[in-house]
């Protein structure tokens, strides 16, 4: 097993290397002087010269990449001339809301989608199954922000049960935090639920007719224990896989959801940085989100060995 973990860890290196090259090239592909672009519109010529010196822009491109990567690996993402802060500071200040939103959404989505998928498979061909699958296609099709505004309109404006927008840090009280997390989490969870429910149903259906499930039933086990202990356990690998892959959707959704609900997180930062053409920040955020995605999927791969001991690589 350790061999497998080591191999999987090694396999992430080329992926992250490609991402790094990609993000590095992002700035070089734009027309114009990268130093001037990084410095922003209000920079003096001294600023530009300083940046050019710091990034080694007069050296060969490979050397520039090495310098850049070296800084990134030390946690130095450069300076945001738009926000007048280092990019690292900027990101640290924005992590909490995004993390909170992602974690709430993840729990909500998994807790809703897995039972839905299991029930749909269990009641295969009935109106329940068709209903769940219909909702799943629907969830894939309605844009995140339309769901968000519909929920705001219904629950925050018409019914006035919840605050319209905004974020309250966890440190300032759990009630207010949760109140403001409910609508964004539901909004973001919809597409994720659609994805997970669909795979859960497919995966459960595949296992449903296995011999050991028939055996479990034959020995007189009730439906629920059969479903949970025998079916779901054996159907877990594809479900966990898609939860990992779905993190990409989640990250894309975070960007939109934070804009709809005015949550000052990394997603909002991404949009603000793009609008301000603040490239060091854009680069850092893209790198960070991609790294998170790769690491989560690495962890997912590692859980296989626990979920299904037959898997040996």
């Amino acid at each position: 097993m350790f061999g497998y973990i080591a191999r999987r860890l090694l396999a992430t290196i080329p992926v992250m290397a490609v991402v790094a090259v990609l993000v590095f090239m992002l700035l070089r592909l734009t027309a114009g002087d990268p130093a001037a672009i990084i410095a922003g519109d209000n920079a003096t010529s001294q600023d530009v010269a300083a940046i050019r010196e710091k990034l080694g822009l007069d050296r060969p491109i490979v050397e520039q990449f090495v310098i850049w990567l070296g800084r990134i690996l030390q946690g130095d993402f450069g300076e945001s001339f738009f926000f007048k802060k280092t990019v690292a500071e900027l990101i640290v200040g924005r992590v909490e809301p995004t993390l909170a939103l992602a974690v709430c959404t993840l729990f909500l989505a998994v807790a809703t989608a897995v039972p839905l998928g299991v029930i749909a498979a269990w009641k295969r061909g009935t109106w329940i199954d068709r209903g769940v699958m219909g909702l799943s296609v629907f969830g894939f099709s309605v844009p995140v922000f339309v769901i968000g505004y519909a929920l705001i309109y219904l629950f925050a404006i018409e019914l006035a049960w919840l605050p319209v927008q905004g974020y309250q840090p966890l440190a300032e009280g759990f009630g207010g935090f949760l109140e403001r997390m409910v609508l964004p989490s539901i909004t973001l969870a919809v597409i994720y639920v659609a994805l997970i429910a669909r795979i859960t149903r497919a995966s459960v259906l595949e296992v449903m007719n296995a011999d050991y499930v028939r055996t479990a039933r034959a020995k007189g086990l009730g439906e629920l224990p059969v479903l949970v202990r025998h079916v779901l356990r054996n159907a877990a690998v594809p479900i966990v896989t898609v939860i990992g892959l779905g993190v990409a959707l989640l990250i894309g959704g975070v960007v939109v959801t934070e804009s709809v609900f005015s949550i000052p997180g990394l997603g909002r930062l991404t949009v603000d940085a793009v609008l301000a053409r603040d490239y060091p920040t854009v680069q850092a955020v893209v790198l960070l989100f991609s790294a998170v995605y790769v690491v989560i999927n690495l962890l997912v791969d590692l859980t296989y060995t626990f979920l299904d001991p037959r898997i040996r690589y």
Partner: protein
Amino acid sequence: MPRQRSVLIGASILAVIVAIALLAPYLGTRDPARIDPVARNKRPGAERVVRADDGTRTTLTYWMGTDSLGRDVYSRVVYGARVSLVVGVSVALISAAIGLVIGILAGYLRWLDNVVMRIMDGLMAVPAILLAIALVSLSKASLRTVILAIVIPEVPRVVRLVRSVVLSIREEPYVEAARALGAPLPLLLARHVLPNTVAPLIVQATFVCASAILVEAILSFLGVGIPPETPTWGNIMAEGRALFRLFPHNILFPGIFLAATVLAVNMLGDGLRDTLDPRVSRRL
């Protein structure tokens, strides 16, 4: 046959949207970019009497209201269908074409495979919307930039699919036989490998189209997409954001059209997948 029903419903909705896009000028629309300060923020169904230069009076009805610049939302929604469909279809075609070429070459030429797939893995490690946003930031916002920015994240998904098909086809006896007979590589690829990729590629292209329409709307909505004066569903909603509490119609109507279009394309894709690839349908 619920599968065929799904194709039928999807195709019908889509046909209506396509008709709306094509016939936009004849559907009682006004210039979608025309700013009318007098008619700002009208609610849906509001009417206004306009007197022309020759003294005749006509009553204008704003079926879907107007936005905060007085532009007719109905006209903008109708014209917006054009942008969404153009983006969806172009992204699907371009990414399918690029993905097909790279996928076939990578699947067939061993030495190329490793390099290409590592690059694709790297591209896929960046969440699609994020990559599109970052790419859009590189140059001035325009339809072409947006299409390109959505194509690039989609290509690796097509490449993976095509490559996996090619990898299984290349071991087939008839391909081996053709190779043994000395068929040149381009002929081999075009005659024996290419046809097998068509069915899964069509299905994938449909899903790419649906996701491209969504991503375009998201980019416009975030203000980083197609320039705001162009009527797109995302732009209409972006414009309506500020006054959403008072005038939800700016988000409601384009939202309904957007969701219906994407739903239709997805249903079409689901149905096509089950029809063209019965193996998968049994699993899903």
